[in-house]
C-alpha cells in the first residue's frame, strides 16, 4: 500500500484537532453553505425592506403542505441520525432500514414540493410573476437541489453498505452525510417560517 493509499483509506485524525479529515472537511463545506444560504436570506430581507408592500405568506402559499413537508424533513433528520447510530453499533440491517427511510422521506419531500409548485404553475404563478414568488421559487428550488444532492449521497451509502460495510472510512462517511442532511433540514426550518408564515 503506498502512502497515498494510506491517506485515502484510513480515517486520519489530526493530531492537534482530534477530528477526522472527513468531519473537518464536511464542517468546512457546511461553513460555505451557511454563507450561501445566508446570502439568499439577506437578499430576501433586503428585497422585503425595499418594497412598499409584501404579501403575507399564507395568502400565496399552501401552509398545510408546507407544515407537512417540515414534519417530513424533521422525521428524515431523525432517521438519518438513527442510521448513523446503527452504523456505529454495527447493525447493518437496521442501518439499511433507517437509511432507506431517510431516502424515502427525502423523496416524499420532493414530491410534496412538486405538488405545491405544480399548483402554482397551474394558477399561473411563475417566478417572473412577482418578486415574492421569485424569492420563493429560487430559495425553495436551491434547497430542493440540496435535497437531491443529499438523496444521491445517501443512496450511494445505502448501496455501499453491501460491499464496504467494513471499510474503515464507512462510519465517517455516514456521519458526514448525516451532518449534511441535518444542515439541509435546518435550512428548511428557516425557509418555512420566512416564506410561509410571515
Amino acid at each position, binding site marked *: 500500500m503506498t502512502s497515498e493509499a494510506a491517506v485515502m483509506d484510513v480515517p486520519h485524525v489530526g493530531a492537534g484537532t482530534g477530528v477526522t479529515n472527513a468531519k473537518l472537511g464536511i464542517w468546512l463545506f457546511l461553513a460555505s453553505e451557511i454563507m450561501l444560504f*445566508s446570502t439568499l436570506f*439577506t437578499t430576501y430581507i433586503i428585497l422585503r425592506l425595499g418594497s412598499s408592500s409584501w404579501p403575507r405568506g399564507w395568502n400565496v402559499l399552501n401552509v398545510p403542505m408546507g407544515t407537512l413537508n417540515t414534519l417530513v424533513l424533521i422525521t428524515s433528520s431523525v432517521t438519518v441520525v438513527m442510521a448513523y447510530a446503527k452504523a456505529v453499533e454495527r447493525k447493518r440491517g437496521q442501518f439499511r432500514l433507517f437509511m432507506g427511510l431517510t431516502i424515502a422521506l427525502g423523496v416524499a419531500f420532493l414530491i410534496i414540493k412538486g405538488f405545491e409548485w405544480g399548483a402554482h404553475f397551474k394558477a399561473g404563478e411563475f417566478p417572473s410573476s412577482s418578486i415574492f414568488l421569485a424569492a420563493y421559487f429560487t430559495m425553495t428550488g436551491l434547497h430542493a437541489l440540496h435535497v437531491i444532492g443529499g438523496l444521491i449521497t445517501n443512496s450511494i451509502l445505502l448501496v455501499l453498505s453491501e460491499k464496504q460495510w467494513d471499510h474503515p472510512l464507512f462510519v465517517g462517511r455516514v456521519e458526514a452525510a448525516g451532518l449534511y442532511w441535518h444542515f439541509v433540514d435546518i435550512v428548511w426550518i428557516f425557509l418555512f417560517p420566512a416564506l410561509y408564515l410571515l
Partner: protein
Amino acid sequence: MTAETPHAAAGHGGHAAPNVKLYMLIFGALAFLTLLTVLISYIHLPPGPAIAAAISIAVIKSSLVVLFFMHLINERPIIYGILAVVAFFVLFLYLGPMADTIATSGRRPAQSVPTAVEAAR
C-alpha cells in the same frame, strides 16, 4: 485493506457517540415546535411580533438539530472555531446591505410591488 475496524474508538476523536433515547426526545420537541409556529401564524399577528415569534422558534429548532443531531454539544474546539468565524462574517453579510437598504429608502421612489396574488391572477 485491514479487516479490523477502528470503531472501538467511536466517541473518541473519531465519531460522536449516538444516543437513541435523546434523539426521540428531540424529535418530539421539533414536531411540537413546528406545530406551535404554524398555530401562532394562524393568529395573524402584526408583522413585528410575528417575525419575532417565528424567528425565535426557528432558532430553537435549529439549535436542537445542531446541538444533538449534529452532536455539536460535545464537539472539538476546531469545529466551534470554524462556526465562530462564519458567524462573524455572516453578521456583516446581513448588516451591511441591510443598513444600506434602510438608509437609502428615501432615494427609492415608492415602487408599487404587487402582491404575488394580484400579479398572478
